[in-house]
Structure formats: structure tokens, C-alpha cells
């Protein structure tokens, strides 16, 4: 027998509907519309340097949005992800400028700090069964306080700078903060594509991916058939923390200084990108590529509005409208997927 025989009751309609319920479909359509709009209005926007320009914010946002998408599919939120990018950057710059650590070593310490925060988030959420919204709001506020308090204590100001003179800076900058040759495209774009590919593969083609969908879809049912739900969720929080470390390090190496309030307010942008990409707020459904496309929409709008010479304030209006449209589209998908035939 062939691998999967085709059932005669599945006609063309079935195929069209299946395409329609792909989680990233809404984001793809949205991205095309936004691109056509800005590209037709602005020659700079569609030029190579213009594309390099708007892919840059898309890349750093995309790395985070993909990780947050995995977490949201697993049924949890992480509000501390934004401020954690600041924390890891501060650790990196402080250790290498004030304590003479090699940049690479300082990055390793930053990674350890990030993973510890992610592990703590995951452990508290899975042990106490408190909503992750509340738990990570707590870590968010605590990290915000630590970032400001410790930075002021060490430097007397609200920023640390001078990373350029630290040992190992040049090599680390090439890998994380530089551009690809002389093309004007940032290295971060490669990291972003890499993260998206790995995340998509894990979701769709690995056992862990099946567990992520399951713990977000119905945790009790997943547990009943032997899925290690707590382990899966803790791993997801640590993945988000890893992404925050990556983005925090990229930013620190690019600007060579970090503000103590870096990353604050970004946590909702990540969630918005993931939702535009097709993630349900209730978990169990979504895609990594969708979140990446959500980040592209964000990047295009962010820079496109500037290219058109509009007031940047309109960006927030645009973001809100996209979010509303995306959630409406998602709700229709969910209704379709969950409708029960009797």
C-alpha cells in the first residue's frame, strides 16, 4: 500500500481549507500588502540598502518573536524577555569594562545568568501553577530594578559604555554585531534566519515539537499520555532566555554601550509579532515562521514610515491595527479547527 492513500471524500475544497488554516497565512498576506504599499511609495524602501535597513530591526525582533512563539504555543507568556535582553547586555559590558573580563567570557557569564532566569521562571510556573503572566511580570519588575540599581551602584550613571576597548571585542563583534562583508546587511539577519529554521524544525519535525503543541493545547491530556509537561515548559522558558541573551549581546556589541532601561517595553512587541504570525493567546497553535514574518511586517512599518517622511507616532497606530486584524483572523481559524461535527 502507498504511504497514505487518498480518501475520495477529500476533494479540492479540503486542500484549499487546509491552506487557509496554516497559522502563518494571515501574516504572509499582511507582509505582502505592507511591502507593496511602502515599495510603491518609496524608492529607497525597495532599494538594496533600504531592504538592509528594514531587515535590521526585523532580525533582532524576529529572534525574540520566534522564541516567544514557541513559548506561547506551549501555553505560556514571558514578560521578562524584553528586560532580560538589557540584563544580558549590562552583564556583558559591565564585566568586560569594569572587571577586565574577555568579551567572550563575559558573554558566557551573561548566558549563564539568562538561562538561570529562564529556569527560575519555568520552575516557578510549573511548580506553583500560577499564571506565567503574573510570574514573569514579577521577574520583569525585579530585573528592571536590578538593572537600574546595580548599574547606578557601579557606574554612578544609568548606562555602561566603553566595550570597544575590551579584550576580545573585535572578534565578538564580527560574529554578532557586524555586517555581512560590505553588503550593509547585518550579521544579526543570519542569526535570525538560523533561529527561525531551527525553531521550525523542532516544532514540526521533532518529538519535542509534538510535546510543545500538546502542553499548550491541553496540558492535562498531554500529561495523561506521558508527556513530561513541566520539563517541556521549563525548556521553553530557557529557550526564550537564550534568545534574550543572543539579542542582548548583539545589541551591546553593536552599540558598545547599554542603557540600564534597555529592552523595557519590548516584551509586548514580541508577543504582538508572534500573534500576528498566527499564535493563539490560549496556546497550542502557531508557527515559528509566522512569528518571523510578523517581525518583518514590524520592521517594514518601522522604517517605511520614516522613509515616507511621516511622523513616527503613526507607527503605534499601525501596530495596533495589525494586531487587531491578526487576532480576528486567528479566531476564525480556531473556530474552524475546533468545530465538532455530530
Amino acid at each position, binding site marked *: 500500500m502507498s504511504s497514505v492513500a487518498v480518501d475520495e471524500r477529500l476533494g479540492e475544497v479540503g486542500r484549499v481549507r487546509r491552506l487557509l488554516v496554516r497559522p502563518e497565512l494571515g501574516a504572509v498576506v499582511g507582509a505582502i500588502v505592507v511591502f507593496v504599499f511602502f515599495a510603491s511609495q518609496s524608492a529607497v524602501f525597495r532599494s538594496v540598502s533600504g531592504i538592509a535597513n528594514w531587515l535590521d530591526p526585523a532580525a533582532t525582533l524576529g529572534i525574540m518573536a520566534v522564541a516567544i512563539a514557541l513559548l506561547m504555543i506551549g501555553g505560556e507568556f514571558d514578560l521578562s524577555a524584553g528586560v532580560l535582553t538589557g540584563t544580558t547586555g549590562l552583564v556583558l559590558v559591565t564585566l568586560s569594562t569594569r572587571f577586565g573580563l574577555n568579551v567572550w567570557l563575559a558573554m558566557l557569564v551573561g548566558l549563564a545568568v539568562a538561562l538561570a532566569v529562564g529556569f527560575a521562571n519555568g520552575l516557578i510556573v510549573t511548580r506553583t501553577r500560577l499564571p506565567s503572566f503574573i510570574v514573569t511580570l514579577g521577574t520583569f519588575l525585579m530585573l528592571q530594578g536590578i538593572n537600574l540599581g546595580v548599574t547606578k551602584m557601579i557606574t554612578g550613571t544609568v548606562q555602561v559604555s566603553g566595550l570597544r576597548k575590551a579584550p576580545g571585542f573585535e572578534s565578538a563583534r564580527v560574529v554578532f554585531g557586524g555586517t555581512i562583508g560590505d553588503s550593509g546587511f547585518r550579521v544579526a539577519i543570519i542569526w535570525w534566519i538560523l533561529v527561525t529554521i531551527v525553531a521550525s524544525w523542532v516544532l514540526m519535525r521533532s518529538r519535542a515539537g509534538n510535546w510543545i503543541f500538546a502542553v499548550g*493545547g491541553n496540558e492535562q491530556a498531554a500529561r*495523561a499520555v506521558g508527556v513530561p509537561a513541566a520539563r517541556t515548559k521549563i525548556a521553553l522558558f530557557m529557550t526564550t532566555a537564550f534568545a534574550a541573551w543572543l539579542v542582548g549581546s548583539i545589541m551591546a556589541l553593536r552599540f558598545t554601550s547599554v542603557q540600564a532601561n534597555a529592552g523595557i517595553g519590548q516584551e509586548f512587541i514580541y508577543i504582538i509579532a508572534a500573534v500576528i504570525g498566527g499564535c493563539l493567546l490560549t496556546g497550542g497553535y502557531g508557527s515559528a515562521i509566522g512569528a518571523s514574518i510578523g517581525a518583518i511586517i514590524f520592521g517594514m512599518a518601522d522604517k517605511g514610515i520614516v522613509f515616507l517622511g511621516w511622523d513616527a507616532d503613526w507607527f503605534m497606530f499601525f501596530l495596533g491595527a495589525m494586531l487587531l486584524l491578526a487576532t480576528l483572523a486567528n479566531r476564525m481559524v480556531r473556530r474552524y*479547527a475546533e468545530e465538532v461535527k455530530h
Partner: protein
Amino acid sequence: MILQTQAIGKAFGSVLALREVSMGVAAGQVTCVLGDNGAGKSTLIKILSGVHQHDSGTLLIDGGEIRLTSPRDALDRGIATVYQDLAMIPLMSVWRNFFLGSEPVKSLGRFDVATARRVARDELRAMGIDIRDVDQPVGTLSGGERQSVAIARAVHFGARVLILDEPTSALGVKQAGVVLRYIARARDRGLGVVFITHNPHHAYPVGDRFLLLNRGTSLGEYGKADISRQELTSLMAGGAELEQLEHELTRE
């Protein structure tokens, strides 16, 4: 007998949820557990499936005394439980649900998707379950189809005892018939089936033995030869109580 209880009991604080219940299920047979709401059916199956542990009496598997520590422990000993509402994850496809928790993997944790799709389809077909498309989300299946997929899954993963918690109670007449047919098919494949229900009309055609529970205690375990459908129904409803009710409801 694969699975057997002897005078088993369970208390939650001062509430005696189950007292001195003895029952058993043999390979290729269906034991029906009947009782009204609050009769102790749930407590009994939770002991059998490893969710709760008994306080008194003994639990035997293949004649040896045992204490199940967790649902996973029960599963590893071949006791699979299909819960009424916990069986499936609606937004996931049929084949993803089928292999959830026991995914076939190649090296590096790669989910063997091709095998999973093929085996899910073949196993469902072997049970006579006709699913249009194994890629469709389970949420689009009917209640009966969902129960059936869960039964096929338990059979595929080598369950020797299948515990079904009220699989027909939320279903229409036709759908309930479909599920009963799969229960019979699982039985024919040599599984012992524990079928929990409060509907004697669902239990009688498929059952070999009938355990009746009332207020946490056993009204007796009967073989099919020892009890008629009429007697079963009347015992279920509490015999005298039903007559009393009938009397009350008659027109003057």
C-alpha cells in the same frame, strides 16, 4: 484474570469513597462497571489506572499483588485508560495525537513523521475506524470518532487492559453504537476491557461480567448468564426505589 481487586477500598479524609469492592477482568472479556452518579465508579477506575492508591484490600495483576504508583506505572504494565474528555488535544492532527507521548523517533530526536502518518492510518483502519484524513485536527472529529481513535491508540501501544471512562455517555444513539463496536473489536483482539457506564442498555450487549456499584459499595458482580437485562436495569436504579418512583408517577 489479568486485573483483579479484592475487597478494595479508598477513603478521602472521613469520606469512604469505596468500600470492599471485588471485581476482575480477563483477557478477551468485557467487565462493565455500572452505577449512578456518586456510586464510586470514578474512584474505582482511578485506583485501577494508578491515579489514586487504595487504602485497603488488594490489587492484583496476573495474580500478583501490586500497588500502582502513577498513571505512567499503570501504562507500563499494560493498563491504558481512555478518559471521556481528556482523551485528545483538539488543535493537533489525528496522527500527532495518536503518537503523543510515544513518538517514533529517529536519531537526534527526529520525529519519524512518515511512519507516524502511515501507522496511524493503518491502525485506525485495522480497527475498522474510517477517518477521512489523518492530518485533520482532532477537534473536527465527532465525539465517537475521538473515543475510537483513543481506543485504537491504546490497542496499538500494547495495552492488555483497556479502561474506558463513560465513553458513550455524551454520545447520541448512533455514535454510541459505533463506540460499542470498537469495544467489541478491542475485546476480540484479546484485550481485557473495563467499561464504565451508567447505561445498562449500552453495557448489556457488550459485557461479559457486570459489577454494580451503589453508594461506594458493591451490589455484586454477575456473569452474563446470571442476570437479565431487566434485572440489571432494575438493580442499577435501585430496584425498590424504581418501583416506588413508578408508583409515584402513575396517574390517579
